């Protein structure tokens, strides 16, 4: 591991302290979504649709209600009606009707696994038995799964009357294409025609699931006075509270939401599924209600990332200078509009200088669960397309693939994806680090090949609130509203400790419920260490200013005579007052020392990454093994080295799974054939080598400590890095993921 030499004078930043929540998590004490209980709690179960597309004619709940132990039954009739209104939903925005319908089908079911009714009973077994007694009369409708079926003439329309947005003039006929988004510049066709070399291809990826190990779970309690409480495992209890309140027409202040530990999310826990249903069951029963999903419910009823069908052509002059890029792709988006066509388009345009380009994405709906954010939403699929095509271009040009990228990589000031100039980015630094890494020049064994791919993710800022308060002994309490999904408590403690120059262990971090701190957006967009971290630093600096001011007063000197060093005020004549000494005298001043900061920083910067992958392909079985892997990334400043490296390694592993194994497989009825971890094959320990990391640090000048978001970028390059390595090993370009043994074997056979 190549931890950067740290030329700065940081004391705590860039170290590897034990996370504050660590012991709870290695001893089984930490309370996750399915672990929480409260007094009087009963258990819910959800009845889900057996049809991929059907109209609900009637629902008869009488037999379920009559079963002893049943306390409440809920159907869509219990949901307040929704107006068609777009509201903030996690990292994106969604129509309120679609959010409500995701929680419980309203009039039509749109996928197998769509919630239709729910029961709460004294035991989970009774609730499940009662759910089976609910009789639903369906009018079954034809369904669509693949993009081509969904766009075919006469295809069944999921949302009647839906007219494609983003096309001028607007189409007159309803379709399953919910939206289109295009960015273009210059005469791309002329530029391609004039190019010395072009590479082209048609690519395809399947829907994949985020695959968090903790299924969705919540406990809800809704009292007769209208006040409710929710205990949830989520990426953002404020946003899930807001969505739940909006669906239930509640004042937001009446819904206090408590964050439980979250067992993985990767974007998939930024929206609501169970919460309003549990609330309604609680209101009807008068009892707190727990709802949990089984793994099969998670696969069928919560959002995967979209599959993609894409056509691409890239041109270059003889010296490898890119001349033009033309891309059109269709997202296989599941049941609701709003999939990731915008970031998809931007992924294609933000990493290289392109004199001419035309890129268009289509959001195409079909009959499986509506897609949700998945780590750099929309980017991995398009990076697979672009970076595979670039690899072909390098082959045609006879150029080293890193040199081709270096020749065209964006540098600060070059146009970004929406033509605004890039800030202080580090793509060239990453490419140079990859080229210099021993992995790039190491010899390959028999049947092995090496691939490289670069990519970026835009990252995000967003709203965050944090407070920093001192106890009378000088210990530091940091409070945020950002769920800790991968060690962010440690990052917050490090930044507070660095600012106050106190030991890391004297800082403790709490993630507060919605009634105990102001709003913070979801943990997503690689934003927490950047934006919530900024809030922590701003609040800590205000605390520091108070400490200095009070120290000056206690010493009888002016503030400019005070030097703050090692957690203490140093004044003239060797006077020293420690943070504890000052905090302990709060009673002599205007009050306790505490500060809160609320921020919405817009000066985030994208993260660039370059991955090198070696694969070994068994021509007799089609099996692809990843035998060596290196992930290089510009991380701005690494706050906690282990958790930064861990993001690179985890993102790479997810991307390798996407490349090699993972896909939703549908039968002819629209049923997922592999809704479990045996057949939806995520990487296990024996599938992977060690994943080497190189942390390139090009600090973000707008962040107090130079932070750039880290978490999402590492899943963007692996799909192409693996595919390019297979191309190198076999001489064959595979354009469809996943690269399962049967597909690779058939491809090698066909070209033999």
């Amino acid at each position, binding site marked *: 591991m190549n931890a950067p030499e740290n030329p700065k004078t940081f004391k705590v930043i860039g170290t590897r302290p034990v996370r504050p929540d660590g012991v709870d998590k*290695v*001893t089984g004490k930490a309370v996750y979504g399915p672990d929480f209980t409260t007094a009087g709690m009963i258990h819910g179960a959800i009845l889900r649709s057996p049809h991929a597309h059907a109209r609900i004619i009637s629902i008869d709940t009488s037999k379920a209600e009559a079963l002893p132990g049943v306390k409440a039954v809920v159907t869509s009739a219990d949901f307040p009606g929704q107006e068609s209104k777009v509201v903030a939903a996690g990292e994106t925005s969604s129509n309120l009707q679609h959010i409500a319908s995701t929680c419980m089908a309203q009039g039509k079911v749109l996928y197998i696994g769509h919630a239709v009714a729910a029961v709460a009973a004294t035991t989970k077994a009774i609730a499940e038995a009662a759910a089976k007694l609910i009789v639903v009369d369906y009018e079954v409708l034809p369904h669509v799964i693949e993009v081509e079926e969904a766009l075919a003439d006469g295809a069944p329309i999921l949302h009647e009357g839906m007219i494609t947005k983003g096309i001028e003039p607007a189409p007159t006929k309803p379709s399953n294409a919910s939206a289109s988004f295009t960015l273009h510049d210059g005469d791309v066709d002329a530029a391609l025609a004039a190019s010395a070399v072009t590479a082209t291809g048609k690519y395809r990826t399947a829907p994949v699931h985020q695959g968090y*190990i903790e*299924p969705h779970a919540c406990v809800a309690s809704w009292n007769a006075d209208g006040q409710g409480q929710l205990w949830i495992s989520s990426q953002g209890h404020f946003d899930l509270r807001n969505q739940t309140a909006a669906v239930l027409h509640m004042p937001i202040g009446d819904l206090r939401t408590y964050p439980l530990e979250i067992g*993985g999310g990767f974007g998939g826990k930024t929206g609501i599924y169970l919460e309003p249903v549990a609330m309604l069951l609680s209101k009807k029963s008068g009892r707190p209600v727990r709802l949990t999903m089984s793994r099969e419910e998670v696969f069928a009823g919560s959002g995967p990332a979209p599959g993609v069908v894409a056509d691409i052509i890239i041109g270059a002059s003889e010296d490898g200078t890119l001349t033009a890029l033309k891309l059109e792709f269709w997202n296989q988006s599941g049941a609701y509009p709003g999939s990731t066509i915008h970031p998809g388009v931007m992924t294609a345009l933000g990493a290289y200088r392109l004199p001419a380009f035309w890129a268009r994405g289509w959001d195409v709906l079909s009959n499986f669960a509506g897609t949700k954010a998945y780590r750099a939403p929309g980017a991995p699929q398009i990076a697979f397309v672009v970076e595979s095509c670039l690899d072909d271009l390098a082959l045609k040009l006879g150029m080293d693939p890193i040199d081709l990228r270096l020749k065209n990589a964006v540098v600060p000031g070059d146009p970004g994806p929406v033509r605004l100039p890039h800030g202080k980015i580090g793509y060239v630094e990453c490419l140079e680090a990859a080229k210099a890494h021993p992995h790039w020049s190491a010899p390959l064994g028999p049947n092995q090949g090496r691939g490289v791919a670069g990519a970026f993710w835009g990252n995000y800022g967003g709203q965050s609130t944090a407070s920093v308060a001192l106890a009378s002994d000088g210990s530091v309490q940091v409070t945020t509203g950002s769920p800790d999904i991968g060690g962010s408590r440690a990052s917050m403690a490090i930044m507070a400790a660095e600012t106050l120059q106190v030991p890391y262990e004297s800082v403790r971090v709490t993630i507060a419920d919605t009634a105990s701190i102001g709003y913070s957006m979801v943990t997503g967009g690689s934003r927490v260490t950047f934006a919530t971290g900024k809030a922590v630093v701003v609040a800590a600096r205000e605390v520091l200013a108070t400490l200095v001011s009070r120290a000056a007063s206690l010493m009888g000197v002016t503030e400019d005579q005070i030097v703050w060093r090692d957690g203490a005020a140093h004044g003239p004549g060797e006077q020293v007052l420690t943070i504890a000494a000052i905090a302990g005298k709060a009673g002599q001043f205007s009050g306790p020392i505490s500060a809160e900061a609320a921020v919405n920083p817009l000066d985030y910067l994208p993260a660039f990454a370059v991955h090198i992958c070696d694969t070994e392909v068994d021509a007799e079985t089609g099996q692809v093994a990843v035998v060596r892997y290196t992930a290089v990334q510009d991380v701005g400043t690494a706050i906690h080295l282990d958790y930064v490296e861990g993001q690179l390694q985890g993102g790479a592993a*997810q991307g390798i799974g996407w490349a090699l194994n993972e896909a939703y497989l549908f039968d002819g009825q629209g049923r997922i054939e592999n809704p479990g971890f045996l057949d939806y094959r995520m990487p*296990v*320990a024996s599938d*992977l080598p060690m994943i080497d990391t190189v942390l390139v640090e090009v600090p973000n000048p707008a962040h107090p400590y130079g932070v750039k978001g880290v978490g999402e970028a590492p899943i963007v390059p692996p799909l192409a890095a693996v595919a390019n390595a297979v191309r190198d090993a076999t001489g064959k370009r595979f354009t469809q993921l996943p690269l399962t043994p049967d597909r690779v074997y058939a491809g090698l056979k066909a070209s033999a």
Partner: protein
Amino acid sequence: MSRMAISTTVNGDPAEFLCDPSETLLDALRSSLGLTGAKEGCGSGDCGACTVMLDGQMVCSCLVLAAEAEGRTIATIEGVAEGSVLHPVQDKFLEFGALQCGFCTPGFIVAAKALLERNPDPDESEIRYWLAGNLCRCTGYDKIVRAVQAAAAQMRQEGATA
């Protein structure tokens, strides 16, 4: 449905609970005994988050009926530390940052401890294949494997000096 009375030993202490004949050991541990350290990630024995030891054998507790625990000895994540002293595997998971969300961690620790009791000096492949029944979606396994290697080294050293 009549419930069955089960007497068992959990983490060295006698434990009794009532269960339905169809209830899993995982459900009984989590609901009846309040031991929520073992997690349900899949309910089908594919993720290993519910790993416990049953009479010294590593099992997915979601695949064991609660009634099968009658008269047997169970060890869960809650019993891995001795009082407040962490087991070397727990220590090294913390030291190496071998967890991100932490949901799979109890299963990994129970499984890794079982490996090191059977084989004090496993090589990387042995660790990776032993832990192949435990899914982690966050870490890419690198730091988990390194933590287990470090715990093994520490335990060998402690064993040598003991």
